[in-house]
């Protein structure tokens, strides 16, 4: 049973990591805490849902669409909204993101009502067993693999491409980057687009595993926060470590103390990590 709990925790952690990876990128590069992150995940989930409900498109096909659509949306939001206030204090961007969150959630609520929806695919609850003790849900394994793929893709983009160099330069020194000819506004927009695109991917997987509704975003933003903080900023490994740490502690914690203690456990860990290692498990001491 302990093994099963460990597996549950690891797989949930994979999904957490996928949720948080985009938030971590945006936060790390632009110092924006994207409160609307969960809302973007919701939009990704609904993209998949509608493509499935109307066209019967398989979620793994629509994954590409939801990433692309969310990338475009993220690009636009940054370019034509957030960039206008980016030099004001970090607060201002935070509240702007809050406004965006309210806007997206309620636009979704008005257009789609608060009904709970579910992408009902045949393989949604498929599983396989290892021995007699451990049952492993297939989709969660896929989610786990996907987060690794996306992390590698992000790693590649950031470290091996010109775009990545621009992003890193901009994140270190905005004015210097501009001086050496980086189109800062565009770089920011692309970064935000990438982060939100990753949220779209998380949304697609979420929609296969869980029911979705326009008001699902807030909770996911909170979880992503926790993951980003535990893992620390500035590394593609951070969200994975953070996600796994959260997933596993939650799994064992809720097993031992009961599920109502789940939030108590994760937020206590959050606060402790911040106090003891403010830069995350991976980050340096100071």
């Amino acid at each position, binding site marked *: 049973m302990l093994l099963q709990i460990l597996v549950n925790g690891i797989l949930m952690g994979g999904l957490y990591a996928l949720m948080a990876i985009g938030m971590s990128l945006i936060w790390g590069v632009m110092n924006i805490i994207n409160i609307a992150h969960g809302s973007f995940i919701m939009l990704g989930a609904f993209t998949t849902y509608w493509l499935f409900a109307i066209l019967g498109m398989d979620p793994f096909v629509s994954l590409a669409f939801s990433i692309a659509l969310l990338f475009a949306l993220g690009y636009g939001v940054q370019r034509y909204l957030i960039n206008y*206030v980016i030099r*004001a204090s970090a607060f201002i961007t935070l*509240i702007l993101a809050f406004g965006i969150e*309210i*806007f*997206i959630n309620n636009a979704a*609520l008005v257009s789609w009502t608060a009904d709970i929806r579910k992408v009902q695919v045949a393989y949604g609850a498929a599983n396989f067993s290892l021995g007699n003790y451990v049952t492993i849900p297939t989709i969660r394994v896929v989610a786990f693999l996907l987060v690794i793929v996306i992390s590698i893709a992000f790693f590649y983009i950031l470290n091996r491409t010109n775009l990545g160099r621009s992003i890193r330069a901009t994140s270190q020194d905005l004015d210097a980057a501009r001086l050496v000819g980086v189109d800062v506004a565009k770089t920011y927009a692309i970064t935000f687009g990438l982060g939100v695109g990753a949220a779209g991917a998380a949304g697609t997987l979420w929609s296969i595993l869980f029911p979705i509704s326009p008001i699902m975003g807030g909770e996911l933003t909170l979880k992503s926060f926790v993951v980003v903080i535990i893992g620390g900023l500035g590394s593609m490994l951070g969200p994975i470590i953070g996600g796994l740490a959260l997933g596993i502690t939650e799994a064992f914690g809720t097993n031992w103390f009961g599920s109502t*203690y789940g939030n108590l456990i994760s937020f206590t860990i959050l606060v402790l990590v911040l106090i003891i290692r403010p830069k995350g498990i991976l980050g340096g001491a100071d």
Partner: protein
Amino acid sequence: MEKKKLQYALIGGFILLIVVLFPLVSNNFIIRFGTDILMFAIMASAWNIIGGYTGYASFGNVVFFGIGGYITAILMEKAGMHFAVAYLAAGFGAALFAVLIGLPVLRLHGHYFAIATLGVAEAMKALVQNLEITEGNSGIYLPMLDLSIKGQYYFFFYMMLGTLILTLLLTYLVLNAKLGYSLIAIREDEDAANSVGINTTLSKTIAFALSGFFTGLAGSIYAYQQAFLKPGPAFSVQTTVKMIVMAVFGGMGKLFGPLIGAFSIEIISETLSNYFLVAHTLFFGTVVILAIVFTPKGLIDMITQRKFGISYFLENIREHRI
């Protein structure tokens, strides 16, 4: 100079007089609405002490609200104490909690502090949901105030008004005392503040405790007014966000900024919800976005600089965009 001060005092006194007399000519709902505005004005002003003046963006200030409310509930319901006792206990209890939590958490800066306080509030909510004495997630009743209907409305309105005046008055005194200088110095540059001899830990903790104290008082009155508390709403992140939005909207780091913010945000959202049953929150989001883009320095900046119109908006955008 003196003449100007006199002018301000007259205008201020006049507004205060209107506010004090306003319940006498209004229906109960308007009084209740006014009470809510005052409550948010207290909380936004209290947030302003730590967030606006000291520069520590607390994202967990609702924890003081919840603690104040629950202390009141437990003392009145379980221990049968008088509201006056519970009210004071709520303020001091929240302040004490601020000190305890502030000592470790105030060592963090920027976003990290914000998230840590958010974590504290969420953890506290989860704790209250699991405690026996708070009756867990099913919520706790409070005794109801034994006055005539009108009397109840007056009571809560004037309690909130009194608490708000106390908050603003104390904030004003603090600002003009040495403590105020130390808080702003910390906001502007904490290392420099430390090197000019400011015990930054002490100053920050006092600021956090003051913030907690007033928020706790607001929570106490709220709990008594509602006569029922549940952890979810009492510790809702949304409440913190609302305090911050109000402070920023009105102008943070300004004495009357949060007050103006609370007043205008509540009026706007009330008006919208009167006309649009469902879409009002959508419009509210739009208002927040527009306000942040065009007036990031808050309404009070517009009022004090006497700048209105498109040129002011564009000036702001030019200043902050890339």
